[in-house]
């Protein structure tokens, strides 16, 4: 087990190096670089530009190498320098001040979508073909086809502009939280509902569930001990990356509802070409996602005794 974790962590370092390099090169390919935006607009220039970009990736000229090494040296010490667009604050300070908003939104969203997604998924699987099942299908199709930014705008239009019930933006009171959480939870609800339903439906028909019923176990015990425990295992695998996605925030929801989270800052950073902030965000997010994947795998091994990461000798 320890070997598995160590090898995964080494892999993570490799991934982070690769991602930082890609991001670094992408950023340095902007204006002054060898490929200017004007030429890129023309269709016939594209294949050559990509080739050049790939060439640059492997045959770097020295100054860029040195810049990259300096960046790496600082990044290891968690020093990403000052933000270009907010020059009074370091990137780390921006993270410290803005990320809590994003995390709060993410956790509220998680809570809401767990209740709705799991509830609808479990209900739909237990009572297949009932109104609950149809509601679940309807909700998941809605979540699938409705982009969060479109839903956010429609919510804003009806509840703020038309009805005047909720404020259009901000993050001061629970009243401000309702619409962002709703808009943000489309994806999580879709994933949770679908996975829970299909995995529950499989388990309910499993032989060991039939055996448990035949033994004369009460329906409650069958559901709690046999069905839920086994059905929710696959849900954990999608839940991990989902949490990572939630606490890294949504550009769209944050910018539409003017929540001063890190997602909003990333959008402004991109528009202002704020390289230090872009680099830091990309790396932190990548690390976070990879670590969540690792944790998910470990949790999976914990709750499902059939999963093991030690190679049989």
């Amino acid at each position: 087990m320890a070997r598995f974790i160590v090898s995964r962590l080494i892999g993570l370092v490799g991934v982070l190096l690769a991602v930082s390099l890609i991001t670094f090169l992408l950023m340095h390919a902007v204006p002054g670089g060898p490929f200017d935006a004007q030429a890129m607009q023309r269709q016939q220039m594209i294949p050559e530009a990509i080739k050049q970009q790939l060439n640059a990736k492997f045959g770097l000229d020295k100054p860029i190498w040195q810049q990259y090494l300096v960046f790496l040296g600082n990044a290891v010490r968690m020093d990403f320098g000052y933000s270009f667009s907010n020059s009074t604050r370091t990137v780390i300070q921006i993270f410290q001040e803005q990320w809590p908003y994003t995390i709060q939104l993410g956790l509220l969203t998680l809570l809401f979508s767990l209740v709705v997604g799991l509830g609808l998924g479990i209900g739909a699987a237990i009572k297949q073909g009932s109104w609950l099942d149809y509601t679940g299908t309807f909700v998941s199709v809605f979540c699938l086809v409705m982009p969060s930014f479109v839903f956010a705008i429609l919510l804003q239009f009806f509840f703020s502009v038309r009805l005047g019930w909720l404020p259009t933006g901000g993050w001061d009171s629970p009243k401000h939280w309702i619409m962002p959480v709703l808009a943000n939870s489309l994806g999580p609800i879709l994933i949770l509902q679908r996975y829970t339903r299909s995995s529950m439906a499989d388990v309910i028909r499993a032989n060991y569930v039939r055996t448990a019923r035949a033994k004369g176990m009460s329906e409650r015990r069958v559901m709690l001990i046999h069905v839920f425990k086994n059905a929710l295992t696959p849900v954990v695998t999608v839940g991990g990356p989902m949490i990572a996605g939630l606490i890294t925030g949504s550009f769209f929801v944050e910018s539409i509802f003017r929540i001063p989270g890190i997602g909003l800052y990333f959008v402004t950073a991109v528009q202002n070409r704020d390289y230090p902030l872009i680099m830091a965000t990309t790396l932190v997010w990548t690390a976070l996602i990879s670590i969540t994947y690792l944790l998910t795998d470990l949790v999976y091994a914990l709750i499902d005794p059939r999963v093991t990461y030690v190679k049989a000798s």
Partner: protein
Amino acid sequence: MSITALPSGQPVERLAAARQPHTLWQVWLRFRRNKLSMFALAFIILQLLVAIFAEQIAPYDPYKGDFSVTWQKPTREHLLGTDDLGRDVLSRLIYGSRISLSVGILSQLVIVMIGLPIGALAGLIGGRLDYVLMRVIDVFSSIPILLFYTLMLVALGSGFWNIIIAMALTGWIGIARLVRGQVLSLKETDYVRAARAMGGRTRHIVVTHLVRNSLTPVIVALALGVPGAMFAEAGLSFLGLGIASPQTSWGQMIGLYQGYIQTSWHLTVFPAVVLAVTLLAWFALGDGVRDALDPTLRL
């Protein structure tokens, strides 16, 4: 069934030829039973026609402003109203459908042209090539996809072709992984072994057995990839990174006028509804295609 219908003594090639259209016909018959998907197909064909004949259909020039009718709510002259420069919203939506549809379809074509050969090669040859491919997949699957698109478009600049490039650079990985897995498992099937034992050349085995049999999940992934790409284009244009003015896209319209929702709701609500309905139609089509081709692929 078709075998018994054929007179005995027919050459094998004839038999194969008789079966080929038969299966496609069966797929169509199964697809046709799904009412929602048929409705979606009709909608998409209509939308394609609207996009192709946009010049003839659009009531106004989508790029030409008319300063006597700025910020108008829907009227009889301008069915969906006008924007800040007095441009007709309906006409802009019609021209926007060109962007949405072509980004969705083109990006998937490029993705399959890159991903299919790479995945097939990795699955076939294995070894070092396969190892490298898997590491590349590791890296790309740990970058948040939207973050990557955003970075790409900042580096390349906004524009139609740059969106396609950004999507192709990440999208081929999914297809390559899919095809690789398929090839790995198909390689071990009895009919491939039989073909090899009968002296079939590698080229023949790859084309007829491996690639053709891994096409079903690829087609399904592509059908569901089209709305995914439209979704991404709308999101990027919404952020001001995708389609640049004067070209118009639905996402761009939503992004540009979201600040004016209090006074001019029609500028954001109409493109939002059109986008959502289009995505619904494509997802329904993809669902129908998947169920018709192979119902076991369903989640």
